[in-house]
């Protein structure tokens, strides 16, 4: 019998179908060469033609012809991911992927060999509470609105443990130690590791951040993610713009510790990653395809092996003891001059973590990553179903701090979902007004600064395979050379400048310019009664 088996799929069963126009195709082969998952291949087809004869003298017959064209593969390993690179390279616009109109069948078969689907990207859910939040307090005649273009704004936030004013005065009087505090821009480039990202992408982001700081005076900071930091950057003056992340795999920290005596500058901060929003309760996952010589050297591991970080730090026994010790040890490594803070996945237990962190005077902040956070690689089920939305979580955390009077002592940084539908400034402003001191952003920058084709519609999402068609998350020089670091840097600068202008356009009509409106929830409204109740903001219809 034929090849019909349970996982035999037709093109119609796949999430993406490749449409090809024979009349326009020049058979140049660029599409088959560029396809990152080899979903299409050159096909040789036989076609039967039955000529219609006008007279009765000749007997009817048929002829067989051969033509060349594009075949779409239908096995799960080669299913089209919809990245659209085929249409990107096609000189004649002869080919393009089209989304299947009904729920695809691939999802029932993307577990061949008993291995659940893993992917990179995002949750593939366009719903966003942040997008629904409106800024309803507009300064009108009782209090003129400000001119966003010409007024002076101070859009800065603080990263670091801030002592209560009474203790600041005592400390000043006694010339005592005060925790380090950084004055930074409220939008932070969130942790995306060297390894998850290609060298060109990483370099582009770093260059862009350096430009924003040194040429434009915007104190933008970037987190390294869990993958260490290139040795030259560790020893450069640009390290002060970098937040070094340590996570459960401790990748790259041997190199960092050895570079300590040679560091010209302190890093901006140390972020201890206990969790991330995309795969809460799960560790990092760098697949072996991406662990080349360079990555292996920076991370201090052998090349060509998968690097799954444990879900938790192996030394973590309790938050009161081990976490406190880790924060203190890292503080000590830099002579208590560098803020050290934990980053956790948003969870219903966030306030319990926060209350413990609040009692640890060395804890500089708390970063909370919501379920909409992106990742280079994770199990599909983790991405889609695990985690807590950021809006309610950061709100709970802030209100908890207000309750104990420490809203100024522990800055909260929110991530996961800001800009997921393109509304970065509005989402960030909403998070700040719900109580965040700053916002971490990753996916939006991948799209805006590097042209990531991923979307909330399960498009592409192959960051984990190292075959990123734009060269953003690939370690293959043939792929990442498509991405020019200078272009990434330029686009990053564009993003921050436009974000800054939009943030001012939000704050100016509300009459805010002197300080960041952290916790200014009286200005927020939402058209959902229950969401309004939950977030303790105004219900507006």
């Amino acid at each position, binding site marked *: 019998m034929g090849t019909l088996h349970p996982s035999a799929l037709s093109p119609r069963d796949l999430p993406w179908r490749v449409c090809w126009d024979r009349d326009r195709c020049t058979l140049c082969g660029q599409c088959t060469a560029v396809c990152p998952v080899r979903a299409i291949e050159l096909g040789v087809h036989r076609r039967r033609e039955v000529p219609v004869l006008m007279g009765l003298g000749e007997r009817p017959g048929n002829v067989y012809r051969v033509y060349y064209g594009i075949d779409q593969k239908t096995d799960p390993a080669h299913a089209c991911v919809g990245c659209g690179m085929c249409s990107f390279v096609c000189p004649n616009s002869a080919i393009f992927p089209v989304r299947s109109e009904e729920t695809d069948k691939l999802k029932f078969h993307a577990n061949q060999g008993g291995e659940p689907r893993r992917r990179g990207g995002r949750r593939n859910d366009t719903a966003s509470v942040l997008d629904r939040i409106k800024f309803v307090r507009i300064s009108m005649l009782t*209090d003129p609105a400000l001119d966003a273009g010409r007024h002076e704004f101070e859009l800065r936030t603080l990263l670091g443990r801030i002592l209560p004013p009474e203790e600041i*005065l005592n400390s000043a*009087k006694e010339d005592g130690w005060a925790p380090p505090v950084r004055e930074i821009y409220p939008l932070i480039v969130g942790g995306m590791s060297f390894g998850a990202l290609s060298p060109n992408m990483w370099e582009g982001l770093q260059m862009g951040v350096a430009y924003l700081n040194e040429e434009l005076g915007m104190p933008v900071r970037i987190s390294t993610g869990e993958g260490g930091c290139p040795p030259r950057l560790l020893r450069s003056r640009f390290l002060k713009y970098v937040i070094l992340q340590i996570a459960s795999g401790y990748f790259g920290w041997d190199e960092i510790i050895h570079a300590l005596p040679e560091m010209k500058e302190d890093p901006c901060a140390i972020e201890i990653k206990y969790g991330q929003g995309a795969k809460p309760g799960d560790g990092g996952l760098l697949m072996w395809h991406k662990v080349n010589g360079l990555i292996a050297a920076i991370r201090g591991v052998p090349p060509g092996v998968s690097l799954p970080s444990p879900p938790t730090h192996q030394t973590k026994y309790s938050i009161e003891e081990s976490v406190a010790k880790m924060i203190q040890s890292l503080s000590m490594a830099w002579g208590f001059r560098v803020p050290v803070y934990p980053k956790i996945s948003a969870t219903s237990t966030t306030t319990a973590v926060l209350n413990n962190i609040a009692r640890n005077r060395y804890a500089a902040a708390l970063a909370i990553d919501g379920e909409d956070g992106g990742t280079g690689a994770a199990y599909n089920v983790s991405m889609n179903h695990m985690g807590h939305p950021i809006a309610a979580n950061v709100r709970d955390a802030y209100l908890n701090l207000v309750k*104990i*009077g420490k*809203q100024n002592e522990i800055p909260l940084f929110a991530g996961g979902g800001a800009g997921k539908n393109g509304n970065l400034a509005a989402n960030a402003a909403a998070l700040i007004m719900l109580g965040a001191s700053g916002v971490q952003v990753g996916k939006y920058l991948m799209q805006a600064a590097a042209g990531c084709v991923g979307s909330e519609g399960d498009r592409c999402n192959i960051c984990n395979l190292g075959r990123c068609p734009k060269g953003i998350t690939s370690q293959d020089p043939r792929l990442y050379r498509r991405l020019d670091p200078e272009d990434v840097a330029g686009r990053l600068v564009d993003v921050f400048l436009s974000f800054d202008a939009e943030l001012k356009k939000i704050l100016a009509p509300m009459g*805010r310019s*002197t300080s960041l409106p*952290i916790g200014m929830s*009286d200005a927020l409204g939402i058209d959902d009664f229950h969401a309004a109740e939950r977030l303790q903001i105004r219900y507006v219809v």
Partner: protein
Amino acid sequence: MCRLFAITSNEPLSPMVALRALDVMKEGHDGSGVGLFMTDLGGDLEQFRGSPILSGVFSQEGIKRLDRYMMELGLLTKFKLSIRPAKEPPEGTPKRDVYLIRVYEYPFEWEGLSEAEIAARLMRIRIDLRRLGEQDGSMMVFSFWPDTIMIKEVGDPLAIAEYLGLDRKSLKARVIMAQGRQNTNYAVTLYACHPFFLQGFATMTNGENTAFGPIRDYLMSRGFPGYAGYQSDSEVFTHILHYTANRLGLGIDAYKHIITPLKDEELTRHPDSAFLRRLKHGCRFLTIDGPNCVIGCLPDKTLFMVHDSKKLRPGVVGGRPGMFAFSSEMCGLDGAIPVREGNCEFQPMKYDLACVDASRMEVRRWSQWEPCTHLH
């Protein structure tokens, strides 16, 4: 927009001086309310300088409740200057039974208590009375403090002054603050009417404080029972002043640095940058976001004026040795003190603080750029 007027004089003045100045500035307020704060009292109340004075608006039932409450605490009435209006109130002004100004005598048990403890008890009594009164509207209490009178009412300032007979000789003070209200709430509540008062500190403001919400939350989470109320966004100015002086032990110049800190890059050029930066960080939730002009009075009877950094609200200080006035409009100052010494006149800008202390010899000007030698 509200109009503000404050005057400090060696000779006790009738509150009419301030109310007439408000009338001169009437173009800027719609007469929807008036608030008066008087301290360094003259007239009949001068002799009771150390005794606490209760100011508020009471119904007959409220007076009975007050008497019962005070008797239980052992606080006895020493002197009364209460106003019981006989006439019909002006249009728009509600009919009230008593505008209470009553001097109390401390109970014996309070003897030997520290100043701080007495201050705490007076504040608790005021808060208790306010809470009791809020249940049935029988009592509205504005202040309970020595050498302090407050009167607040809805309506046109001059019409109310006439109605209450505020030009009486017995009612005089050397420091008077008055606000002509441009009401922005439909439901007029007297607790939203400036000036606001807490343990010797009083301020009044015009403009709108857009950072009100987070500031209120921060003050309310300090664990101090006096940081409450907040029917108006401007009440936080008084409480920040109180926090600066009483909780942090800092002066009026620190108040300016707290509510309108220098920008990060400006701080790098300040001689006290390290300290001021830490102060700014620590008091981040007390930074105001105006536009506001704040006129206030300290427990030592110093009057002062500051602005937020946007300087969209004007203000002027002027006068002559012995008498100075602070006004939100120049015409108010002209009306109250037509003859002034030119070199005493000053319009503070965004970095400035202007103040006149109880000696009333000069307008002291201070800029945020000056070293803050007495801050720490």
